[in-house]
């Protein structure tokens, strides 16, 4: 054996290897995208009414509220934390903005009417405050985010209940109504807001120092601390960001649905988490991003919308939805493993 031989052997193997390595390391991003394409193709073939421009607009509108909430949640999950209070905070913020708006006389809520801007500011302050409480519990007291936000879920639900007392409010400030339920040039405002917020989140995560810190804290918290980062400040910030995004989603959602009431957003908790994770953002932190969340949102949107277009037992649909989400999650975990193996 001469060394020359071994060098050529290695050179021959180099190219496919490198490609394979790139593919493998990108698995996290590729897999959800493939899932999306598969789902889309399937429904396009299965139902003629699915792949139309109109229906595409429907899908966009349907994922907007989830999308707005998921922006903040992406930050939290990137830090390897979780926020279970987002849906409840969305709900209470939506209710609060209605509470501070003059309702029709038949609505039986002892509300406090205010000018529109004041109502919006107060509602935003409320969700930011709840986020701060989450941040305080997580960083200063040291309660795990899972527990802290579980408690916050109850607290926010409690505030909601006290504000509406089982009633339904309908009116929200004009700005919120416009953004939540009207269109401009055929495009719903809510889609535009969601797109802008996702874009904003992406820019912050990719191009700012804070965004880098979020990834680093999620990647290895101990190392972030030993690098002299203020880890608690960063964790606290993402909890507040999450709560505010949820609050905005809640306000626009109320306008979008046309009413504010208890438990209105319950399904949005799981949907937001699913969107972030199915998109390929790691629950262990440090990997993924808004791009992944967008793909995840579409997977969910196409799935929910598509199942309505095909002729299946509507009870079976729930099960199918669950199974497909499970499959997407398995792919996510598998992609994570592949990556770890390359970096061994």
């Amino acid at each position, binding site marked *: *054996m001469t*060394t020359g*031989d*071994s*060098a050529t*052997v*290695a050179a021959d*193997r*180099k190219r496919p*290897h*490198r490609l394979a*390595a790139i593919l493998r390391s990108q698995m996290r991003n590729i897999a959800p995208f493939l899932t999306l394409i598969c789902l889309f193709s399937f429904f396009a073939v299965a139902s003629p009414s699915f792949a139309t421009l109109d229906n595409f607009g429907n899908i966009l509108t349907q994922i907007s509220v989830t999308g707005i909430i998921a922006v903040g949640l992406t930050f939290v999950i990137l830090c390897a934390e979780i926020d279970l209070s987002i849906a409840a905070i969305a709900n209470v913020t939506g209710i609060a903005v209605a509470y501070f708006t003059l309702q029709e006389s038949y609505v039986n809520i002892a509300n406090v009417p205010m000018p529109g801007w004041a109502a919006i500011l107060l509602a935003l302050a409320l969700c930011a405050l709840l986020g701060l409480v989450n941040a305080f519990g997580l960083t200063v007291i040291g309660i795990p985010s899972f527990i802290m936000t579980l408690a916050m879920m109850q607290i926010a639900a409690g505030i909601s209940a006290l504000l509406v007392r089982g009633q339904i409010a309908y009116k929200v400030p004009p700005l919120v109504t416009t953004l939540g339920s009207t269109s401009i040039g055929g495009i719903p405002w809510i889609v535009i807001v969601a797109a802008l917020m996702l874009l904003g989140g992406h820019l912050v995560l990719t*191009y*700012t*120092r804070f*965004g*880098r*810190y979020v*990834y*680093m804290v999620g*990647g*290895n918290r*101990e*190392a*972030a*601390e*030993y*690098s*002299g*980062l*203020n*880890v*608690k*400040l960063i964790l606290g910030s993402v909890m507040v960001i999450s709560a505010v995004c949820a609050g905005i989603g809640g306000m626009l959602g109320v306008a979008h649905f046309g009413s504010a009431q208890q438990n209105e957003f319950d399904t949005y908790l799981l949907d937001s988490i699913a969107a972030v994770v199915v998109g390929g953002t790691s629950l262990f932190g*440090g*990997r993924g991003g808004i791009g992944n969340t967008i793909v995840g949102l579409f997977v969910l949107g196409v799935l929910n919308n598509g199942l309505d277009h095909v002729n299946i037992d509507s009870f079976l649909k729930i099960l199918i939805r669950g199974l497909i989400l499970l499959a997407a999650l398995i792919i996510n975990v598998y992609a994570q493993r592949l*990556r770890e193996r*390359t*970096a*061994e």
Partner: protein
Amino acid sequence: MPAGQPILELQEITKAFGGVEALRGVDFALSPGEIHGLVGENGAGKSTLMKIIAGVHADFSGRFILDGKETRFRSVRDAHAAGIAMVHQELSVAPDLSVAENVFLGNQPTNRLGFVQWRRMAREAGEQLKRFGIDVDPMSRLGDLPIGLQQLIEIARVLFSGARIIILDEPTSALSPPEVERLFATLKRLRDEGTSIVFISHFIEDILRVSDVVTVFRNGRKVAETRAAETSKPALIEAMIGKGREALEETYTHDIMLPPPAERPVVLNASSLSLARSLRDVSFDVRAGEVLGIYGFMGCGQLELARILFGKLRPDQGTLAVAGDQKTFRSTADARRAGIAFVPESRRDMLFHQEPVYKNISISVLDRISSLLLKPSREREIAMRQVDQLRIRPAAVELDLGMLSGGNQQKVALAKWLSYPPRLLVLCEPTRGMDVGAKDDVIHIVRDLRAKGLAVIVLSTEPETVLSLADRVIVLKRGAVVREFANERISKDRLLEAA
């Protein structure tokens, strides 16, 4: 030694990671009942070859012959089944499990119903560890123990696993001299009982003392294999890194003279630091342009002391003053703002394995080079300069950190603080896992920093590290300062005696 058939033989092993060639046509043979020393520069491919033997890397080309039969392991389990066990360079313990569970990892004693027999497990683990001179409660959580003790437990687990081929990848890096002695005695006993052992280390004296055969790696190739009795330290260093540097690495068996103290301003003053059971009334100061060495055996309170200096732990009593101002660090960020930089002894705690090298280096200076938006090209430039200066290999700042060899990762951990030198640099085990050439580089870097007026504190359990760097040395023992060497003669023996 029986010169008969090797128990394990590897032929023309080639292994590449993406574009990086780690091994190029390596032959390696291990005889029954031999201790085989392995040396080579950082990134030479030592760990990679051993991981192939231990079944970690299943994807390689070449022939793998065990007991005269060609085989191929598909996983670590296969290797275990064939009687091969390895202590990895990066500690691979389960910090959340108990000591006993770690000792029995994967084969806990169970009763007929399949339930783990806790009491038996704890008792047997305790006995095994005691035989190895480790006195620890088998039910304590492993992650709560000092890192050196964790390493010892990991070693003990592998040594007593009954494997017939044992691979130790830099096992002594966190051990104190008496523990190293005990380890070597055990290795020799196992060898005499017929076990084959591969021993990787950057301490050439250790290699020469304990091994029968020594193999030298360089740049993915095997460049020499000799009987330990027929070679010498300079010869090995020359084979490792080339001619002209064989005089590297002093042994410090003779006295050296510490310089007289300089009249420079005090950068850090620690007074009466105490912490639970770890530290008692520790006071010292460091001046600008001075390197203070803090030496002590594992568990002497060094780790805690270093963490107090960087705001990671808060002392129960005592105060810190930076440049004369009293400081209370409530976070590591506070300490950094006061101009203190810190490198912990374990690189796992310091680095982001899934991020590229340049992000690992720039993380601690981001706030200086950018206010809101990142400047990636500036980051790369800074990283590239450090990579050049520290000779980090491969010299590619885009590579994920996890793809670097252990020693090169350690260099990155140091590099991150050097682009904007702080006022005080606290280094725990700065040369752990580095090859002789790299150690020499670190020594020069620290001397440079000192010349620029930085204050440096070097904490180590290796006498050589402290002696090669320090202008003044304090010795810690059970959490208290027992001796200070300043402006006087010092040697390895005197240091060990004081500890």
